């Protein structure tokens, strides 16, 4: 089936079996192997990508459902690999083996956006007011991204440091 995907800003016209997941289309057809396959069942978060700015588990979604969508993978989070979150993950060493890192980054990018838009979660204290990125809020929102190396302290520090900076600005060179 013909499917048009815009991935990291580049349009791709693909002819796909209807049963191919978005993750497999990215990894196998487009050779974007940054998105990882940790479980293939929506349980680990390693495959998290952004679809029209919102995060999904790419292993749980069929590629043909995304005709016309804008997909962002870890490779497309910034042009130079130095988005504030990427730089913060390096600075706070929010990784060991690094296998969960692409998913964590895509997820965290969306979390910051959700917070900015004031979308509450089920642990938010106030459903009406602006959402504050507390420890609970972050734990809840990042709970779908397993890190078996348990780098949660570094990952959390990295995300909170960017959230606290508020505005998006370039990190100093490492």
């Amino acid at each position, binding site marked *: 089936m013909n499917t048009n995907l815009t991935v990291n800003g580049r349009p791709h016209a693909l002819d796909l079996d209807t049963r191919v997941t978005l993750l497999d289309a990215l*990894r196998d057809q487009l*050779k*974007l*192997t*940054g*998105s*990882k*396959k*940790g*479980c*293939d*069942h929506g*349980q*680990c978060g*390693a495959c998290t990508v952004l679809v029209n700015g919102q995060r999904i588990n790419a292993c749980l979604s069929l590629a043909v459902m995304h005709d016309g969508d804008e997909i962002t*993978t*870890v*490779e497309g*989070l910034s042009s130079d*690999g130095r988005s504030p979150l*990427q*730089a913060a*993950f*390096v*600075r706070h*060493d929010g*990784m*060991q*083996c*690094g*296998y*969960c*890192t*692409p998913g964590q*980054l895509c997820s965290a990018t969306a979390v910051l956006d959700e917070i900015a838009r004031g979308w509450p979660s089920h642990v938010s204290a106030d459903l009406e007011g602006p959402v504050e990125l507390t*420890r*609970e809020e*972050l*734990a*809840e929102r*990042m*709970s779908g*991204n*397993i*890190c*078996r*190396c*348990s*780098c*949660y*302290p*570094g*990952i*959390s520090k990295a995300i909170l440091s960017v959230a606290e900076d508020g505005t998006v600005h370039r990190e100093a060179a*490492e």
Partner: protein
Amino acid sequence: MSVGKPLPHDTAPLHVTGAARYVDDIPAPANTLHLAFGLSTVARGVLNGVDLTKVRAAPGVVAVMCADDLPFANDVSPSIHDEPLLATDRVHFVGQPVFLVVATSHLAARKAARLATFDITEETPILTVDEALAADSRFEDGPVIWSKGAAADAIARAPHRVEGTMEVGGQEHFYLEGQAALALPQDGGEMVVHSSTQHPTEIQHKVAEALGLPMHAVRVEMRRMGGGFGGKESQGNALAVACSVAARATGRPCRMRYDRDDDMVITGKRHDLRIDYRAGFDDLGRLTGVDFRHLMRCGWSQDLSLPVADRAMLHADNAYLLDHVRIESHRLKTNTCSATAFRGFGGPQGMVGIERVMDHVAHALGLDPLKVRRANYYTDMAEDATEGGPSAPPQRSLGSSPPPEDISGKKKEADLTSRGGPDELNRVVVAEASGQTTPYGMAVTDFILNAMTERLADQSDYAARRAKVADWNATQPVLKRGIALTPVKFGISFTLTHLNQAGALVHVYQDGSVQVNHGGTEMGQGLYQKVAQVAAQAFGVGMEVVKVTATDTSKVPNTSATAASSGSDLNGMAVKIACDTIRDRIAACLAELHQVAPDTVVFAGGEVTVGGDTISFARAAQLTYESRVSLSATGYYKTPGLAWDRKRGQGRPFFYFAHGAACTEVVIDTLTGEYRILRTDILHDVGESLNPALDIGQIEGGYVQGAGWLTTEELVWDDRGRLRTHAPSTYKIPACGDRPEVFNVALWDGANREETIYRSKAVGEPPFMLGISALMALSDAVAACGPGYPALDAPATPERVLAAVDRVRRG
């Protein structure tokens, strides 16, 4: 100075952009084939045959292979050749590979693998500890027994006694990157294999055997793993061998990765066990005698179970001086996946037993468990002790040792570089050690836990918080809190002595850049970065000058697994030795040109100073090259001072001990059994840290993984031997919110008294056992609910905590 700096992982910039390649990300030629195993659905039975007609006819299938189709060895065991790649006449567990499908896509192979019809005569499987004991189903002839003093007597004469049983669950590694391999056929039948493995030499050996080739015809490369934790020490053999034989048969590249659920069903896990204990003690809680019985479920094949069970015995004392102790270890053979290495390699299982005893003793006496622990500690080393330990030097026995027994009846080479390999090489005469000794007769000369505990108790405000917890529990009916501070003393070295060696290969190029290769593998622990720091330090150059390349069996041969926390100790030393050799050559060359003494040449800040001149390191390399002096060297290191007689359980198996202590506070909900970790304080001993940032990461990660093992990670098999928890949906791995709410980690500031690489200490495994404090804190909270002893089994899931609350209330 690069050593000691808190640098992030070397490839962090690649990880955050998705550019860091793992085995399954390596681009393969377009004609690459994909593999899947057909798995036994029966736990035990006679394999009469398999109807593969539908499998062969399935779309995309190129070949199907059974045991009979294998050209040479049908063996992926790291020990006694009892583990065929593909089942022959019997099946031994649900998930055992029976046949191999080779197809044009991963999905096609997997789909086809499900189309077989098995003809298996089912037998009643041996699944539990009790069933295995009843059937006397075990490895080795009988239990291994080590003792010191006269435990039974001492317990009988003691003023007080406790006894009990503790069930301790296994653990799934869940390395986030599943097992994977890629085999690329070469000219003349040779093979290049990319394997997600902690042990490239083992892969090389098994592939060579399976292809009927000498080892020189197989090259294994490993750049990085997405986590290993011991689960890639031997469990990758099957995939690498399968890819290689399929690549040989088809002449095409072959790749394989397990689907996650298959991975969890097929591969081995941490050994679960039952610990029976009896202890005698005085009014202060000092143990006068203790007796342990370890009943370990090893699964269907031996794999690395013997050394794992040994290490459990070697840590049955943890931090405590035991004068009268007996440890009996049963290695039971069951129709389940073959339990294997997992961070700590049995050490955690042994340690949790004695910590349970301490907890039980304190409860019986109504004492603070920390008091009881401290009353039993070994004595700290003297302040000025800087020399190596006084343990006896090893002496080779002159008597000729018999060759390793060939169990399989077929001629196969022994796996010399495997921890499951034969230990006949290690016949040693062990001299009696003096002073305080472990149950296995090793002098404890570097103990520091008294001082560490003192400081941690102070920093974590243990006494005041313990009082607060008691006040809270006295007034609160529903939520109960608990606090515990537990120590870790972990022995560093492979217990199979000959594995304690490492090699390195270092090149300096004419532009002054440095390439380093060593036998260790990178799985996230930061080994490559630490080794690069060592090399940069040796040449006095910046980190950007040094590149560590993928582990490769053609660069450094005969490597040991990156395991036993030994990675930086062994490989760091080997690299330093190689670098020092080249540096000395450069110094000698420049010294001659300048007519000065070589030891006046100084390497620092990317420059070399000689006879008043300062030139760049690159210029120094050029001059050395032009003088026709080699800028390439190997390095070789072996750990000194080891002498271990496994049969008698006597000697010095470890070079030194690494220490740590953790204080954990929890709160439990007595209505549901749910709990949270409120705060954890850790003080850990890494000697002089090579890299504090990486070390703290290992400590934090180790603690969370250790706490996960003992709290939420529960493996459940049904009565037909099927693993029912084969995905993270049913197997609870700690997530972001499960880490302690307050988490303070500090490094102890003492150097290793042994001459390790820059006086650092190994850090991979020891922090895992800090997680025991979480279990003991839960026990403390449950104990606040009533008069009885909680006797918590592990993992202490909310269900188990709730049941324990109920038990305790009933007294």
